[in-house]
């Protein structure tokens, strides 16, 4: 448990700093601008369009990728904890802490972006704002975790963790479809939860479970493939 805490502390220390805040601020501004434009062009469909387009389609996966890159310090996932492993921390447990911290940061960051997107797409007196906020922030939290753990596990590939880059590309390219392969990508289930076409005709309830299953599988793979 101590080593999990050490991994989490390492991740938060890497995320701390002005550049992280700057990235989040720029993302929030971009999402808000896109939402405001959508609201002007078609107020009725603006929330759906901005959520499935800019917020969950682009901002959240890119944010998860950047968080993953940052917490791994640009390294492979298993090598990213070397600075504490050399002093005796179990790499597996430290990686677990690192991934959980990265998942939490992405989930909260994603929820913040979704909040900004909805504030831009709705007027403040809009009756559906509260409902949209409740459901969308839930999706942002779970999918944020799933994306972070997915990119974390992919960081085990490549000399310097280049796998996470390919995971991002695969999520855009494959996850946009409805095939069996798309079911392996968080994007297809997020789309399903937002009311889009499901992968493998899964129900929305199954999409929640699929995101949780992806998260657990990625956490398990990261744990098993890392040397003690």
């Amino acid at each position, binding site marked *: 448990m*101590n*080593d999990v*805490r*050490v991994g989490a*502390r*390492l991740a938060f*220390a*890497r995320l*701390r700093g002005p550049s992280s805040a700057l990235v989040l601020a720029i993302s929030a501004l971009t999402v808000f601008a896109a939402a405001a434009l959508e609201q002007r062009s078609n107020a009725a469909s603006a929330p759906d369009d901005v959520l499935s387009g800019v917020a969950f389609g682009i901002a959240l996966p890119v944010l998860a990728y950047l968080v993953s890159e940052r917490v791994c*310090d640009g390294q492979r996932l298993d090598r990213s904890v*070397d*600075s*504490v*492993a*050399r*002093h*005796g*921390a*179990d*790499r597996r447990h*430290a990686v677990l802490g690192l991934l959980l911290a990265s998942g939490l940061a992405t989930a909260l960051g994603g929820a913040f972006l979704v909040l900004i997107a909805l504030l831009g797409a709705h007027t403040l007196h809009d009756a559906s704002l509260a409902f949209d906020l409740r459901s969308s922030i839930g999706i942002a939290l779970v999918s944020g975790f799933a994306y972070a753990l997915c990119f974390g596990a992919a960081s085990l590939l490549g000399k310097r963790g280049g796998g996470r880059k390919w995971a991002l590309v695969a999520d855009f390219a494959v996850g946009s479809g409805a095939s069996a392969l798309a079911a392996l990508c968080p994007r297809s289930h997020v789309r399903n939860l937002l009311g889009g076409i499901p992968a493998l005709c899964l129900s929305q309830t199954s999409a929640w479970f699929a995101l949780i299953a992806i998260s657990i599988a990625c956490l398990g793979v990261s744990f098993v493939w890392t*040397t*003690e």
Partner: protein
Amino acid sequence: MNELSFDVVSHAELASVSGVLDSGSHVLLGSERDGTSSVVLLAAGIVKPAAGRVLLAGRVPFSSASARRTIAALCAEERLPTARHAAGAVQLALQARGDTRSALSVLDAAGLAHWAMRRTSDVSARETRALALALALSHPKPALLALYEPLALVGMVQERFLLDALAQLSKNGAIVLATAGRVEDALRLGGEVHALERGIWLDSAESRTPPLQLTLRIQTPDAERLAACLAGAPEISEVTQVGALELLVHGTDLKRVASRVIANARAASLRISALRQDASALESLATARAGIAHAFDAARPQ
């Protein structure tokens, strides 16, 4: 049993290195290009050998967290855990080791407490190594202490503190392995001397080099009286008079020989007009290098 073994290890500069180190002090003579840095990285379990096996008390340090917890290391290039301040980085390393002491107490013991609140981004590479050395020497009960060129940090860390800590840890049963690029440093560190020459490990019997003989050339109007004053001084192995105004003083420790000459001359009110190290010291160094090369040839498989 506390024992560090290299079993036909090949990695970076190292070529099929085999050897066993028991508890006590060991000095590995050689430069980074000879592979001393790789030896420390492998022994500390920071990297996995490309071929062969490294074991500490029967466990592989790279894949055993409990083994790594008993290792304190100082590498050629150090990276502290990410933190805003030096104390935060040291604290995280202590937490990883399962050590409940505060970072400040560890830094204070090494005389580095004034660095505690320095931002890690402002800490130079050499200062990072000094912090890592403080962390290594603070280990309460290490099985292995693997240090790359610790004497290069003297100035930031007190030499007395470093040598006393090494002696104490060695006495407590730890394997203390320190590398040295210079014969003088190896002698200051003490312990069993091994050498690495271009990735080949020469064991202690082969690599033990005689202490370097150095010569001081002294010009004085009272050469004969000064020679008499210096006779019998423990730091001086031989005094040769060259003409009426010049002496050649031989010994092994430049600082101590020079101090003795000056002290004795001052005590006898003798004037020294010039004092310099004789160029023949280079010949001595060449002789020492030739000795290592000879051992290297002897160790090469036929």
